[in-house]
């Protein structure tokens, strides 16, 4: 029972992390109609920046804030130099160009930080377990990820639903021609949205860094997960991304935790230990395939045409 609660929390934590990544992606996708494979690279850069800055400043919080700012700037620079020339091109061009960026970032990281991964140690105050319920302990750091991510999600919700910029973003996601007609400085809006997305990806990367090793290619697996989420949630929909992310996070985590035991009850030991890891890795892709077959536009399509 405690195990289930712990795994549920782990799933929630992973899902929220995925949401941070998916939110930026779905906004960029929904508003600018831009497929950005390099989004995972920004996630990776966030983690590397964090590992570096925490090392320099000797403070986890300060390092994290610096890393966040650095990712934001990197994202804006990237948009300014390269990506803005790709808006309006077909998706294939965008896929190809940002695929090139992944190659570039991976090798640049290898050049600067070397091929071995980095570790980002946590300060002592974040390593102690916290008692949630009588008898239920949960690592403080994971708990703080949940809290930070929920705060960011709430902020994002307020920005998107309550502010003028948010209104433009929503208008853009559901009807791209409209924002052009409103006489808005679209270039600036796009740069802002892209920077925001980059910062969110960086935040996800730097928060994940202490849990996993910081390594080259870390952004690629998780990028695919983020794509799965926005496709399930419906492209351009923040709400869809949020729900789908938590759904995917929990299913993936629970699948990995409990599927082997469940399978062992049905299958022989050897067959189960072969099938379980494959099946739990496949679970969310299976989910996405089912969703797409039943609802080809995702669960919460933002675009109504």
């Amino acid at each position, binding site marked *: 029972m405690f195990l289930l609660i712990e795994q549920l929390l782990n799933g929630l934590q992973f899902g929220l992390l995925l949401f941070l990544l998916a939110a930026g992606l779905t906004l960029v*996708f929904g508003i600018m109609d831009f*497929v950005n*494979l390099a989004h995972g690279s920004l996630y990776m850069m966030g983690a590397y920046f964090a590992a570096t800055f925490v090392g320099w400043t000797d403070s986890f919080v300060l390092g994290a804030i610096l890393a966040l700012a650095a990712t934001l700037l990197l994202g804006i620079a990237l948009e300014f130099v*390269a990506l803005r*020339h*790709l808006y309006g*091109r077909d*998706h*294939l*061009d965008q*896929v*190809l*160009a940002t*695929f*090139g*960026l*992944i*190659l*570039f*970032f*991976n*090798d*640049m990281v*290898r*050049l600067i930080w070397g091929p071995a991964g980095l570790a980002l140690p946590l300060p002592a105050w974040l390593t102690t377990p916290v008692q949630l319920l009588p008898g239920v302990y949960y690592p403080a750091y994971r708990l703080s990820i949940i809290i930070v991510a929920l705060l960011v999600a709430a902020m994002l919700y307020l920005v998107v639903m309550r502010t003028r910029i948010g209104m433009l973003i929503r208008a853009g996601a559901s009807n791209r021609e409209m924002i052009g007609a409103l006489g808005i400085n679209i270039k600036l809006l796009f740069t802002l949205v892209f920077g925001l997305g980059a910062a969110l990806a960086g935040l996800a990367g730097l928060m994940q860094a202490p849990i996993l090793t910081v390594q080259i290619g870390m952004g*690629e697996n998780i990028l*695919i997960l983020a*794509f*799965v989420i926005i*496709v399930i949630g419906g*492209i351009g929909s923040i709400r869809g991304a949020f729900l789908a992310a938590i759904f995917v996070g929990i299913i993936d985590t629970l699948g990995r935790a409990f599927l082997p035991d469940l399978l062992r009850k049905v299958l022989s030991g050897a067959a189960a*230990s*072969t*099938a*379980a*890891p*494959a*099946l739990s*890795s*496949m679970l969310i*892709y*299976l989910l*996405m*395939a089912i969703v*797409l*077959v039943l609802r*080809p*536009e*995702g669960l919460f399509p933002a675009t109504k045409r």
Partner: protein
Amino acid sequence: MKSKLNASNAVVAVVCAALVLLPIYSAATGNIFILTLLTRIIIFALAASSLNLIMGYGGMMSFGHAAYLGIGGYAVGILAAEDIGSGFIQWPVALAVSALFALVIGSLSLRTRGVYFIMITLAFAQMAYYVASALSRYGGDDGLTIYKRSTFDGLINLSDRTQFYYLCLGCLFGGIYLIWRIVNSRFGLVVQGVRSNEQRMQAIGFPAYRYRLTCFVIAGTICGLAGALLANNTDFVSPAVMYWTRSGDLMVMVILGGMGSLFGPLIGAIVYLVLEELLSQFTEYWALIMGPLLLLIVLFARGGIMGLLGRVRRG
């Protein structure tokens, strides 16, 4: 496909002649390395050509095409591990399994459009990747070593470098010829018509879905053949050949060479893999140059290399 004397046709002719003559050069100079490199390039060119059939001619942007490389390869590898070494069994199985996989994922994916199609094909390929990783009996994550290449008794010896090279080249030219016939056939015109305007094709009486699906299966089968060749070439198959960046590589080759041009994928594969080879000799960090290069190609050289060559002719 009107044969005119122009820059792109000239380049294609020279390249094809060079490919045919290469083993002679290699034997004369003792340069085995170049034969090995070119064998690999030819296999990837075949895979890219099959992707071009659905992407360039059919308008289906599959981001999971490398899955067939793995499926064809694993069919050969698993049968070899189970002591079934005959190519007459291995290869038909490789093709059949690839075709079946294409049929299943195609029939689901082709219900979606645009970015959703790109993503769902990607997802299916990732599923294949994880399945392969979990095959602990056949090496799991680490991959499967193939101790003996497919045997075609009395016909051809795949362990002979030159014979294997010509087999691959024959498969490539055969594949391109097949695609050429298909593209100009009734079937091919329908598929291209659907790419251009699906609604119109439905209105004049074509059930578009069936044609797209058939085309998808043909392309998957051809790529499965490339997978069988690749496994024999490296004597090894691992989940890594199915990883999504591999599918990205194939897309890059197609677009680099020129989508919807018959020899474009071959040119693209040569340029991409030779560039990779040269850059990695020059620096360990070859992707630092390759990455931005891709970006520049997309920004400034639309239509790929064949497109550029075509423009040379027009002035």
